[in-house]
């Protein structure tokens, strides 16, 4: 598990072959030309594909974002930055950013805490440990399509034969319209629980792997020094030791939340109160709207935001500074 400490998500530090590798290449006496050929032999197919299937479409999106591209992807009417101005004035797109922010504020800390708790739980268990780990991990196998379906039709449907309403019924409580009501906003419960169920196991495994990396000696030393097992060692040993993993987890959770689409799309109709950015863009460009200009502009704004959040988080949590 050396991979954990070499930490990958640091674009700056160990990211590239860099000057050292270059120098070494020269020292090794491999001709630069020969190694260039090798490089393209190995990486060529991938880079060609990346160019064709990622960079060309991104470039095309940028092009579209500068045009009035209504019902066409080969537009002729150049509008400059108008599409960006439109989409950034207060309206459904900015609303969708707030929806996302709220979603992230709920789902990121919750996943973080619960995944860590599950990892600690499984880590402590000795009997039937593999069983519990499997149970928490297996939902990762399910798709959002399947999970949304179970949530929408069987657990949180708004009528009497939903599981949640059946349980409420045992206590004499009237059926609740889980996804159809904003006061109280129960749809958040539905959205958040489906994501938790699907992703907790994944992050639990991450924490579990990290927990297993913590040297036993650290704890033993702490006990000898009089630290009490439990809260004290957790705070002073476990948490600091999980730092790299924690930062990676938060970053992954944020990006995943920003790209939330499947459960919103499959669980809820297209409503202004629960429409995250990707869902809005999907309906604008692909859905009924066919407005590729505004859709592309919004998508690029979203990409810029994701990049900014990633870099900002790197700054705050000191990505890349830790070990250079």
């Amino acid at each position: 598990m050396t991979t954990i400490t070499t930490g990958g998500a640091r674009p700056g530090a160990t990211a590239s072959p860099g000057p050292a590798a270059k120098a070494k290449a020269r020292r090794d006496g491999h001709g630069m030309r020969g190694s260039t050929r090798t490089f393209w032999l190995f990486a060529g197919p991938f880079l060609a594909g990346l160019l064709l299937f990622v960079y060309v479409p991104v470039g095309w999106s940028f092009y579209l974002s500068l045009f009035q591209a209504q019902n066409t992807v080969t537009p002729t009417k150049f509008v400059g930055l108008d599409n960006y101005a439109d989409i950034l004035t207060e309206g459904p797109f900015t609303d969708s950013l707030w929806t996302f922010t709220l979603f992230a504020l709920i789902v990121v800390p919750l996943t973080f805490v619960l995944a860590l708790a599950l990892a600690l739980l499984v880590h402590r268990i000795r009997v039937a440990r593999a069983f519990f780990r499997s149970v928490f991990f297996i939902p990762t196998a399910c798709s959002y399509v399947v999970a949304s379906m179970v949530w929408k039709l069987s657990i949180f449907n708004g009528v009497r034969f939903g599981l949640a309403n059946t349980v409420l019924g045992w206590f004499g409580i009237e059926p609740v319209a889980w996804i159809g009501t904003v006061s109280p906003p129960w749809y958040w419960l539905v959205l958040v629980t489906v994501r938790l169920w699907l992703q907790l196991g994944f992050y639990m495994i991450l924490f579990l792997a990290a927990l297993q990396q913590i040297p036993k000696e650290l704890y033993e030393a702490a006990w000898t020094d009089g630290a009490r097992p439990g809260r004290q060692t957790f705070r002073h040993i476990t948490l600091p030791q999980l730092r790299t993993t924690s930062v990676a987890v938060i970053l992954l959770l944020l990006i995943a939340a920003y790209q939330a689409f499947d459960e919103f799309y499959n669980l809820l109709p297209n409503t202004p109160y629960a429409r995250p950015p990707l869902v809005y863009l999907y309906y604008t460009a692909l859905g009924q709207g066919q407005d590729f200009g505004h859709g592309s502009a919004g998508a690029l704004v979203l990409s810029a935001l994701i990049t900014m959040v990633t870099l900002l988080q790197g700054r705050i949590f000191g990505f890349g500074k830790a070990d250079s």
Partner: protein
Amino acid sequence: MSPEQNPSRSFGRRSFLRASGTVAAAGFLAACGGNTGRGGGSAGGKAAISQWYHQYGEAGTQQAALRYAKAYTKADVSVQWIPGDYASKLSSGLVSSNGPDVFEFHPDVQMAKSGQIVPLDDIIADVKSDFTEKDLAANSVDGKVYGIRMIDDPQFLYYRKSLLEKAGVQPPTTFDELIDVSRKLDKGGVKGLYLGLKGGSDILASPLIWATGSELLTADHKVAFDTPATVEGLKKMRELYTSKTLLLGAPTDWWDPSAFTQGLTAMQWCGLWAMPGIQKALGDDFGIVPLPGIGSAGRPVVYNGGWSTYVSAKAKDVDAAKAFVKWLWIEQTKFQEDWCTSYGFHIPPRKSLAAKATKLQSGTAAEAVKLFETKGHYDDPYWTQAMMTISQDMVNNAVVSGKNPESEVAKARTRVEAELKKIA
């Protein structure tokens, strides 16, 4: 093969007998049958035509569509039966080179203006008078007809007669009565009214505005919905929503009658297509009413939805595609009749066919046809999909989220005006 063909053959025979009774109509059809041999089928290899349908819920419709395509001899027609989000697949298909040649959709001015679809005046010319003025208007942009109406689907309120009797109420004729009736019907685990997953804020967005006496756009395509009456309508709708008598969160949306047939709700907004299923489940125990009017200028409203066929400008062979559309949706009246009445109920857009559709001539179905003719409102092709979303957001914000209706209407006005600018 035979189980598939039998019903259509027997249907064909029946309709033939009926048609032979109306000699004028038969002669008329024969006349336009003679007009076909215009280039479409070309001398060499057969043209290939790809035809798209959204996924209909009624059993047998897909087989029927395939049967029609197979019966066409002048080109190879492949039918794509599109599940899920049809509008999205269609829009991505239309911008690509693998899109449909012939497809069904709703009137949309932007498709016409951006040159995605071609005018069909030449193929409809001979039978234009057989379509209603409103059907034609709904498919016309700048005086050209872009779509051939395949089915008319009026939507209205279904109610359970027995439950209304038990509660001692009459079918509602005003919006206040609707709220009151919904309250009285909401008991014993049965909710009063089902307007879909979004509490009606999507499907009733346009009908609600019409019911207040307002229009969406003026005849010369300017914003018309921003009236005090619309604000009043939103307030009434909010009152209905907050009465807590609406069924919310049923497993399926408003277009599926199962919440109504399973006894989860006493009333439901749904379409004519669902009537055979409802009859099967409930017998005679149901009736229909339009959406009641709201306010002093109010009027009862039925929403005339439906589907039309269009020809993509990117079709591999536009003429061949047009020839096929002409064959199927203009000449093959037998298939059109089969399509409209053999599976779910739909009103044939052709007057001559509607007159012959016996299944629609008695009972509640006949009532629906009458509502369609007298209270029906059609989509305006200038009211684009984007504007629909804007108005639905407006209703949703004001009704479901309880935001200020005046400012929601004002906001929607600004956004619709921006959309209108794109078309101009």
